[in-house]
C-alpha cells in the first residue's frame, strides 16, 4: 500500500511544473501499467487526500491503465491477457521481454485557459 506516497509524488510533480501563480487545474491524466505495482482504485482514493489544500484540489484524476505488452522473438509485440502468464498469446513461447505495462507517468494536465499565462508553454518542454 504505497499508493499514498505515489499520490503525493503525482501532486508534487504537477505542482512543481505549474507557473507561479498557479492556474486552476481542472484535471490530470495518469498512465498506470498493469506491472507498475499500483492499484488504480487505491491511487484514486489516495489522490483525493494528497490533492487537498493544493492547486490540484479541484482537479479530477483520470487513470489510464496500460496492459502488458511483450516483444515475442517470433511474433513481435503482443498484448498479454494477464500479468501472470508470460507466454506469447499467438505461439505460446515463454517471453519476459516487456515493452509495455510498467508505466507510471503523468500524461497531461488540463488547465482553466482563462487564467493560463504563456509561461505554461515551458511545461510542455
Amino acid at each position, binding site marked *: 500500500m504505497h499508493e499514498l506516497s505515489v499520490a503525493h509524488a503525482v501532486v508534487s510533480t504537477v505542482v512543481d511544473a505549474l507557473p507561479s501563480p498557479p492556474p486552476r487545474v481542472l484535471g490530470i491524466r495518469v498512465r498506470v501499467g498493469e506491472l507498475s505495482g499500483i492499484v488504480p482504485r487505491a491511487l484514486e482514493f489516495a489522490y483525493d487526500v494528497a490533492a487537498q489544500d493544493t492547486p490540484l484540489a479541484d482537479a479530477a484524476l483520470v487513470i489510464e491503465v496500460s496492459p502488458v505488452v511483450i516483444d515475442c522473438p517470433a511474433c513481435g509485440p503482443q498484448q498479454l491477457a494477464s500479468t501472470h502468464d508470460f507466454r506469447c498469446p499467438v505461439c505460446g513461447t515463454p517471453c519476459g521481454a516487456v515493452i509495455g505495462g510498467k508505466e*507510471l507517468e503523468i500524461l497531461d494536465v*488540463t488547465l482553466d485557459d482563462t487564467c493560463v499565462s504563456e509561461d505554461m508553454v515551458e511545461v*510542455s518542454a
Partner: protein
Amino acid sequence: MTARIVELRKGVLEKNDLLAAGLRAQFADVDVRVSNWVSSPGTGKTALLELLLARAVERGIVAAALVGDCATDNDAQRLARSGAPVRQIVTEGMCHLEADMIGEHLSGWDLRALDLLVIENVGNLVCPSSYDLGEDVRVALLSVTEGEDKPVKYPQLFHSSDVVVVTKTDLAAAVEWDRDAALAAVAAVNPDATVVETSARTGAGIDDLLDLLSTRTPHLQEAP
C-alpha cells in the same frame, strides 16, 4: 470557461529513479555488486544473509549489508555477528525502501573496499517492486513453507526480479513442497529468472548464490 490540455509526460517516481541512476553509476564506478533482496516477512532473508555474509568473510569476499525494517535494529545486530559491516535502515512504518534512504545510509562507508553490497528490503511483496534502489540484481525470495503459487499471486514483484531464491529447502519434505509447481509458477511470470535453491540450516546453495551475486555482470535494470 475554456480548458487547455498541457502535455507533461513525467514519470511519477522520476525523483527516485534519478537518485537510483546516480547510485548505480556510483556503484559501477567503484566496482561493487549490489543486490536488492525482496520477499514477504518470514521468508528467511535475514537467516540466509547471516550465512551468506559469514561465508563471504571466510572466502575473502568483502561484503556489507543495509537492512530495512519498519522498527528495531534487531536484524542489524544479528547480521553484525558475521563480522561484515552492517547498517539498519528503520523506515518507521514505511513499507519499502527508497533510493534516498540508500544514499543516506551509505555515507561514511568506503565503497571502494567492497566487493558486494546486499540491501535487505522491508518484508513486503508489493510495494518494493516500484522502487529502483540502484541495484545490479533484484532478488526475490520464496520459502518452501509459503505455497508454490506465490509468484503468480505477486507477479509484479517476481517479474521485476533477476534472481529467485528458494529458501528453507531443508523443510521441503515436511511441508510436501511441490518443486515443479513452484518452478512453473516462477517461469509463468518471469521466464528469464535465475533460480537458486538454498537452505540456511544445511548451507545448501549458499556458495552458488554468493558466486552469482558477487561476480554477476552488472546490467541496468529496465526503467519502470
